[in-house]
């Protein structure tokens, strides 16, 4: 008798085989490449990034007002706001899953990698059509350009330089003058110790996890004249993690941790949690982007009174300040009509407030009415003069404590500016993370060995590209 099981067995094994075959089938993303050039009258729906989910209702109201203003000016474009939070780990999945909006924001650091991977739309043609295309700050613009010299992402907002943030109340409590923040790394060390001895609170803290530690260590390196990567000009890069600046920075952290006991001993701090610690009064000083005040107010409830901002200490030849920011990019699956609409939106929402007085006032009014910070110091996307002009336009609406930020604002345009490492940025940061964590968690950490090892790891990655 023929086995009655042969059929079902066949069915079941074919399920497994289908599973194997399913893995074989490649899914070519075939974007509907409508090569038709969009006309002025074509109706386009544009999905754009609005705000981070969980933002205040007032912030959403402000955003919606701006959207309404835009749609009035461009009746053929309908805006679809999408709450969005950039996370590198979910970006690739969102891209494949088709859940990315047409216009979204990416950090400066990640643009180059995305461009390399072919995950950003080429918006060079639309960009060049902008009247002010030639006025952008060149370093910033270069961050959004591919190796072919075409523009894939446009500098949009929050251009920052890494700076030193400090708690004025703790300074006062420890007998230090809050209007006289430290200007050299040695002074930072002394003040940290004074604060620790007088108040029991850690005088200094550093990010150490999720690649933010590496980001800050790079900033600390630049501030001491070192560089973590070298562009050899011929397409190859050399990792220079074993430079003196990085060594000195690690030694600094080591000494604060193990000799002075003035460093907050937490190897899990990242961008968000260090803000939290600062807001909770667990550390008196730390370095981060100069625009972090906005977040401190909106997310962590910091009040203006206790906050102070000053420049990161720079010492030695070649010392520089690490800069970064946010770019606006367009979904790689967008057709030409969408791209044209996208550029219009980017122009209106992100850039017009810097170039057009009417828009600047409209934007500031909306923010002010909804209780959001206006006037947080940022670096200019265009020129310094243009930036200062735009500040004059909104002078009536500025509500941040600028007089407590003079340590930074008085030098922010004169500081030599250095971009982030351009190749394998996140991996470099990851390798630096490990160094910080090692120094903070092992009193006998061998700094020389650490930097050598990190260097080898990153060099291997750079060579593999």
């Amino acid at each position, binding site marked *: 008798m023929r086995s009655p*099981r042969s*059929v079902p067995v066949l069915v079941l094994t074919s399920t497994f085989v289908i599973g194997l075959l399913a893995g074989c089938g490649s899914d070519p993303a075939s974007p509907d490449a409508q090569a038709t050039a969009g006309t002025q009258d074509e109706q386009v729906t544009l999905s754009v990034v609005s705000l981070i989910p969980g933002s205040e209702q007032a912030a959403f109201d402000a955003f919606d007002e701006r959207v309404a203003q835009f749609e009035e000016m461009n009746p053929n474009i309908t805006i679809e706001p999408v709450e969005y939070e950039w996370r590198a780990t979910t970006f690739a*999945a969102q891209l494949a899953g088709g859940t990315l909006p047409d216009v979204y924001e990416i950090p400066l650091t990640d643009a180059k990698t995305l461009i390399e991977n072919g995950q950003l739309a080429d918006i060079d043609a639309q960009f060049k059509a902008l009247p002010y295309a030639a006025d952008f700050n060149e370093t910033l613009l270069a961050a959004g350009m591919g190796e072919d010299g075409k523009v894939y992402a446009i500098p949009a907002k929050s251009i920052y330089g890494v700076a030193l943030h400090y708690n004025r109340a703790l300074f006062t409590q420890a007998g230090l003058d809050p209007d006289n923040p430290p200007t050299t790394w040695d002074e930072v060390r002394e003040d940290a110790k004074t604060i620790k001895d007088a108040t029991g609170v850690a005088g200094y803290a550093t990010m150490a996890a999720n690649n933010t530690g590496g980001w800050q260590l790079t900033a600390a390196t630049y501030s001491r004249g070192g560089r973590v990567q070298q562009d050899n000009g011929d397409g190859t890069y050399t990792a220079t993690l074993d430079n003196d600046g990085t060594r000195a920075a690690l030694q600094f952290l080591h000494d604060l941790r193990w000799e002075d006991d003035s460093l907050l001993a937490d190897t899990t701090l990242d961008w968000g*949690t260090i803000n939290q610690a600062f807001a909770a*009064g667990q550390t008196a000083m730390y370095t981060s982007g100069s625009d972090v005040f906005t977040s401190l107010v909106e997310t962590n409830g910091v009040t203006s009174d206790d906050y102070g901002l000053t420049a990161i200490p720079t010492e030695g030849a070649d010392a520089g300040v690490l800069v970064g920011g946010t770019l606006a990019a367009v979904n790689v699956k967008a057709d030409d009509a969408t791209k044209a609409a996208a550029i219009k939106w980017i122009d209106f929402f992100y850039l017009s407030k810097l170039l057009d007085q009417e828009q600047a006032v409209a934007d500031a009014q909306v923010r002010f009415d909804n209780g959001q910070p206006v006037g947080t110091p940022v670096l200019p996307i265009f020129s310094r003069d243009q930036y200062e002009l735009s500040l004059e336009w909104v002078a009536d609406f500025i509500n941040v404590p600028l007089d407590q930020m003079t340590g930074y604002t008085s030098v922010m345009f004169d500081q030599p500016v250095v971009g982030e490492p351009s190749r394998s940025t996140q991996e470099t940061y990851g390798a630096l993370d490990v160094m910080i964590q090692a120094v903070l968690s092992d009193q006998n950490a061998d700094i020389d060995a650490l930097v050598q090892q990190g260097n080898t790891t990153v060099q291997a990655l750079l060579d593999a590209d």
Partner: protein
Amino acid sequence: MTLIRTAAPVSHGRRATPPDDPPASPRRRPRRAQRDAERGAVSEADWHRPVLRRSLGASHIAMLALLVVWGIGPLLLLVKFAVTPTQDILRTPLALFPHGFAFENLDEAWNDVRVSHYFLNTIAIAAGAWVSQVLVATTGGYVLSVLRPRYGKVLQWAVLATLFVPAVVLLVPLYLTILDPPVGPSMLNTFWAVWLPAGASAFNVVLVARFFDSLPREVFEAARMDGAGPFRLFWSIVLPMSRPILGVVSVFAVIASWKDFLWPLLVLPNPDLQPLSVRLPSLQGSTDMGVLMAALAISTILPVVLFAVFQRMFLRGAGLGGAVKG
């Protein structure tokens, strides 16, 4: 989908003990005989020996004290922190409310941090996962145990085989399946991505099938004689008799869903849809410690209450999960 956590996985077992007798034949024994039958290593005579009784008694008391600290200690601290001001938590965590209470932590957690919203998400996810698991386990168990088609053995082996595959192997391909399912659009950022894979629990299927095996066949025969088809049999005979095992499966389904972390983290990147287990860690950087503790406390209420109410079912199921005869 639950990844095996650490020691003592409660929900993975190679074989289950025969389940309780179905309600049709309750056990009735004289109390003393019952006590004798379940006596354990210590005999009545042992208890009369003073040295043994005292040392055993002392060790019981010591153990009880230890267990109270072990089981309740951390939870008590959690509740305490939930109503303590943040600065007190950070500076003097074990002090007894030097600056009074901070009940507003709870209000802030529930409303501002929107724990209420994530709480609802968690409930919605648990409900759907429960439906999915009960549906697959009962219908699957029914097929394997009662209907017994010709391909039943093959099916059973295919299901059992998945018990031997560590959950980590499924992680990436299942994720890609969610992104790009065989039919329909991406399931990313939908609850279906959590509900559907939850049903693929071989343990549930085996557990229910075993239980159905133990149901008296005479009842089925009688029903069939009366002309009941397979659907009637399932709905009106088998299911009502399966309340005990369905209770166990349900309780574990809900708890497993409540605890699930990695899978919802991957397939629900939209914070609006995330359950408590995924949302709470990301709140660390944006929430005061006191409010965070309040949020943690609120998330613990339901499982603990469920446990308190359904103790017996939990403990019986936990024993079932791994008890093996020799």
